[in-house]
């Protein structure tokens, strides 16, 4: 049997979307898209930010109603009027933007709506026991009775995946499930997906990591601007062809060390001396020069984010000192940091960064406005000008700069936050996972932006899980392990091999997240 593109008998599809369209206002997010899922396949759904991937998923799972076309399950047209209805067909989903319920226990998040009952009452003991067993499969040993919101983004993501897997009898849909997972966790997820595939499930996998696509997927469907570009077997495609189809043009990858990044620097901007915070990050000493990018590498939970939060004063340090241009300064709160010309683009945009109901324009100007003070309000034209400028340079895809930012696709929201901090023209910028959830085109754009900012004399600290990326833009690389700065690499040492070794020196690269 040949499983390529369109020449499969229609009845073979486990689930199918036929000619579906979705219109938001005047914007066609999906335009007569066909999408078919076979039993026992992993089907990658690819496309740039805003291509319509998440919208298609929401139609397949009853969260949105299509404006045209139909959805079929096992060859029969169905009208899915809610996610609950879709669940009853054995369709389990991890939505890109869903955070589950931070106020409830881990176990309840796993089983909500399907809790085991005894005499009509929820059997909590059994629910917690089942949860423990279920999470073991993902290498997660946490107390199932603990509040979900007390765990890290990665743990919450795994819980969301575990829930979807456990609900999926037929179809499992994963919308960017790996965006906040580390290597080990991704590996475990892949094992689970592979075994589900053997069990005959149809699996949809959305990601911007092309490596993961090639590691996992059998077939791929590519969307561009809401239109279907192609569905084909992955083995029939090369990586370049894939990217060209997604973008509709070629892009150059920059994978090797940037020589520019290595040029000698002289002016010291910031000096952190024995700077640290109890129970958060051990004291570290770090000198940051103007025009320098410090890459921060390390596993999830190694203290990378903590380091950034301490530097920016969100969690003020309780030890050590810091000087700016040679003068001692004190950073007790984020407002102090901003006043000194710092910027911080946080990792979890949903919780820490985005003001969902404000417009794209307002989200971009808000940090600059905060810096200027409220008495020097930017007028609307200035705001639009600024937003337009950054919207263009960051390639933010939005129907209008006045639409609420929560309606943007996930990756475009990320770009808005980055634009916000760039608009303040900071002297020192901290970026925590700036390329997470961002498509290849924008990815290259952000790496280029980082390089440009450095050449303009800005000092940057960039935290990233993608080692290739760290190598590409860093002048120096700091490696974190167990909440401690364990290495500072420069020159020749900035290579994936050395970094990986520094991260993993203490034996196998287990994540302490799982031991939390």
């Amino acid at each position: 049997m040949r499983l390529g593109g369109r020449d499969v008998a229609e009845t073979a599809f486990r689930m199918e979307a036929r000619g579906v369209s979705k219109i938001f206002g005047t914007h066609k997010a999906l335009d007569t898209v066909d999408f078919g899922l076979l039993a026992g396949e992993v089907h990658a759904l690819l496309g740039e930010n805003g291509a319509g991937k998440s919208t298609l998923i929401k139609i397949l799972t009853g969260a949105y109603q299509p404006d045209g076309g139909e959805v079929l399950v096992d060859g029969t047209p169905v009208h899915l009027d809610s996610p609950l209805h879709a669940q009853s067909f054995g369709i389990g989903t991890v939505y890109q933007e869903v955070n589950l319920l931070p106020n409830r226990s881990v176990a309840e998040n796993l089983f909500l709506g399907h809790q085991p009952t005894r005499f009509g009452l929820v059997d909590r003991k059994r629910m917690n026991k089942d949860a423990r067993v279920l999470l073991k499969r993902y290498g997660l040993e946490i107390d199932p009775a603990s509040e979900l919101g007390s765990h890290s983004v990665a743990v919450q993501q795994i819980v969301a995946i575990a829930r979807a897997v456990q609900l999926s009898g037929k179809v499992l849909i994963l919308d960017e499930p790996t965006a906040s997972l580390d290597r080990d966790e991704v590996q475990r997820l892949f094992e689970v997906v592979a075994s589900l595939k053997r069990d005959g499930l149809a699996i949809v996998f959305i990601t911007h990591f092309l490596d993961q696509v090639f590691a996992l997927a059998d077939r791929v469907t590519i969307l561009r601007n809401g239109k279907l570009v192609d569905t084909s077997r992955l083995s029939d495609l090369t990586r370049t062809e894939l990217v060209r189809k997604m973008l509709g043009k070629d892009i150059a990858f920059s994978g090797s060390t940037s020589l520019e990044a290595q040029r000698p620097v002289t002016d010291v901007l910031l000096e952190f001396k024995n700077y640290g915070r109890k129970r958060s990050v051990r004291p570290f000493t770090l000198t940051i020069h103007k025009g320098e990018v410090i890459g921060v590498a390390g596993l999830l939970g190694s203290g990378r984010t903590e380091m950034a939060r301490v530097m920016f004063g969100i969690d003020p340090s309780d030890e050590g000192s810091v000087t700016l241009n040679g003068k001692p300064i004190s950073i007790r709160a984020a407002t102090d940091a901003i006043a000194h010309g710092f910027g911080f683009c946080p990792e979890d945009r949903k919780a820490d960064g985005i003001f969902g109901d404000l417009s794209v324009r307002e989200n971009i100007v808000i940090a600059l406005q905060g810096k200027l003070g409220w008495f020097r309000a930017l007028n609307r034209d200035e705001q639009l000008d600024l937003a337009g400028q950054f919207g263009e340079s960051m390639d933010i895809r939005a129907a209008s700069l006045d639409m609420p930012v929560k309606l943007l696709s996930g990756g475009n929201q990320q770009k808005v936050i980055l634009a916000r901090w760039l608009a303040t023209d900071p002297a020192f910028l901290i970026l925590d996972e700036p390329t997470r959830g961002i498509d290849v085109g924008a990815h290259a754009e952000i790496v280029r932006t980082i390089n440009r900012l450095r050449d303009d004399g800005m000092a940057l600290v960039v935290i990233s899980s993608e080692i290739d990326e760290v190598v590409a833009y860093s002048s120096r690389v700091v490696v974190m392990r167990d909440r401690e700065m364990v290495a500072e690499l420069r020159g020749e040492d900035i290579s994936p091999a050395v970094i990986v070794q520094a991260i993993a020196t203490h034996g196998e690269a287990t994540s302490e997240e799982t031991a939390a």
Partner: protein
Amino acid sequence: MNRSMRPLLATVAIFLVAYAAAVFQFPGLLSTRVLGNFLTDNAFLGITAVGMTFVIISGGIDLSVGAVIGFTGVLVAVLISSFGLHPLVAFAIAFVVAALFGAAMGLAIHYLEVPAFIVTLAGMFLARGGASVITQDSVPINNEFYTMISSLYFRLPGGGRLSFVGLLMIAVFVFGAILAHRTRFGSYVYALGGNATSASLMGVPVARTTVQIYMLSSVLACLAGIVFSLYTSAGYPLAAVGVELDAIGAVVIGGTLLTGGYGFVFGTFVGVMLLGLVQTYIIFDGTLSSWWTKIVIGILLFLFIVLQRLVFAASARGDRSSETA
């Protein structure tokens, strides 16, 4: 420990300390007689507050409950006294009316996407107006069955009396606690309060749950109205004005977060008892104006809202910074 337990523990501690202090001043307060009256006098408020707890945990608010109490009292009184119906039949009719009323509010909140505040405010005017249309005056209820159940009680050791309505309130609290903490419906209520969008994507039947929550609140307010009429042996259209605010106060003092998602039915019980204690203390003292009750409740409420903010803000920071990377 679950951080949402902390405000609850604080309420319990404050209640115990306040009670001990009151007993220290007026040893008479430590008797089963006073305790029994405590339960009887606050029964209607307690029953209302149970429904309010669900509403607030789900992220909503119900301003109509006081009016529903007044309406029920009048409806039941008229059905019994003017139409000569048996009280049980009158109760059944009142429950049906209240259930429909609550369902209508729930439907409006969900489908018209109007804030609960507005919908239940309209409901409040409707019920209060409806009661006044039925009658402007207090309608006495002279009925054997009524007298019988209103004088039912168990004798407690020490001479106190646990009345039927006091017992009914405790039963409603037990029922409420089981419903909130041990059923799927309960988990849906918390889910809505936590994040309504997530809840809907996770497959929580949002429409059904919203309707059920407001039905529950109205039905319990109706039960409270019946209890109130048992207590006063009359129905009066302006009865229980402002009880919705006392109920909200009891719920918040009991540790439920006004923004939804966190809370305990047991906490509401302690909240109601704390309000009752303040009232009883002021009566015992005799020199203080009864308006002092309001002032103390105001201070307590303020304290608790500050406490909750501190607890949640502090633990949110602590939890996140110790785990995210």
